[in-house]
């Protein structure tokens, strides 16, 4: 589910995912009012809706993850819908996301965007069961007035860059989310895995969970990436990777990993370069 100001009034509205609906999934939007949520003007979105790219396929999981954010700064939140098992060409489970512009009458298919890695300028490439769109975090990673979107792809894998799982970041502009300056983050980019260190059976699920907030170190929001299957010493497993924001966006020079074995006085700091940055 996701809450945001999606239209009609200044009251918050609710988007509800129904990933099992008709086998392919759908998302319901209920608008808020002075008397609470109302069913008037409710919307139901799926990949069979006119203006929405793709087509509904069994087990797509359309609506399994949702987010809202005003990426173009027009005062209305956009609705982001994840389709984590979406089939792209012949790639099963590659995943994709839809971004529906917000208007005074709610989200619309006019100007809707459909994103998947390797298309429309988005870095990376599709891989099977990459689960692109499995998690989202909305924040201003540059500290500007436009919000930006981080997208988890915890099943993504590439022998070239190492690591299983990735996070993509799209930055907001007055025209909405744009591919310009987009980033792809992996364990290699944040320095917790060496190139060619990939092991097929190793699935740390980098990007399985995401949150954003300004935790310090400047005015921009920071991105926290959950890596719940990362190997750490002893009984523990899992880690969180923090990538700090800056006026230039999320910075590979400002990352930190914390796990249950991190000493209280120290958290590892790394300085690796991220794909997509100059």
């Amino acid at each position, binding site marked *: 589910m996701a809450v945001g100001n999606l239209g009609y009034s200044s009251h918050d509205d609710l988007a509800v995912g129904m990933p099992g609906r008709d086998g392919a999934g759908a998302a319901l939007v209920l608008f808020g009012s002075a008397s609470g949520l109302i069913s008037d003007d409710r919307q139901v979105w799926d990949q069979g809706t006119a203006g929405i790219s793709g087509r509904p396929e069994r087990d797509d999981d359309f609506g399994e993850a949702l987010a809202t954010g005003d990426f173009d700064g027009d005062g209305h939140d956009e609705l982001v819908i994840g389709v984590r098992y979406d089939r792209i060409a012949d790639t099963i489970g590659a995943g994709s996301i839809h971004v529906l512009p917000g208007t005074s009458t709610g989200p619309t298919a006019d100007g809707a965007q459909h994103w998947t890695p390797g298309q429309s300028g988005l870095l990376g490439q599709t891989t099977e069961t990459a689960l692109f769109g499995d998690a989202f975090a909305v924040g201003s990673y540059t500290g500007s007035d436009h919000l930006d979107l981080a997208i988890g792809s915890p099943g993504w894998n590439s022998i070239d860059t190492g690591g299983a799982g990735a996070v993509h970041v799209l930055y907001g502009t007055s025209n909405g989310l744009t591919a310009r300056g987009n980033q792809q983050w992996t364990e290699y980019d944040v320095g917790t895995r060496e190139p060619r260190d990939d092991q097929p059976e190793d699935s740390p699920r980098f990007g399985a969970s995401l949150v954003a907030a300004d935790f310090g170190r400047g005015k921009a929001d920071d991105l926290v990436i959950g890596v719940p299957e990362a190997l750490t010493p002893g009984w*523990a497993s899992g880690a969180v990777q923090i990538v700090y924001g800056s006026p230039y966006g999320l910075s590979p020079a400002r990352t930190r990993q914390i796990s*249950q074995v991190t000493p209280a006085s120290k958290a590892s700091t790394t300085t690796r370069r991220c794909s997509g940055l100059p």
Partner: protein
Amino acid sequence: MFGSALAVLPPAAPQEYPTLVVGAPNYGGRNEEDRSGIVHLIRGSADGLTAARDQVLTARQHPQHPIGEQFGWQLTS
């Protein structure tokens, strides 16, 4: 599974920083029945998130039966 669920607690005062909440629902042992789970609270600061002053919540602090609870599986704020 430290990091399988994340949430943010807003700052308690205007000059303070948010707190990162991290769920580790399998904490407690290799066997499923031992996985009582734990939730870590990691505070923001002028230097960003720091493990210093980390706090934890466990199922044992609450009325639930602690065995196999997988405390921290889902978080929201």
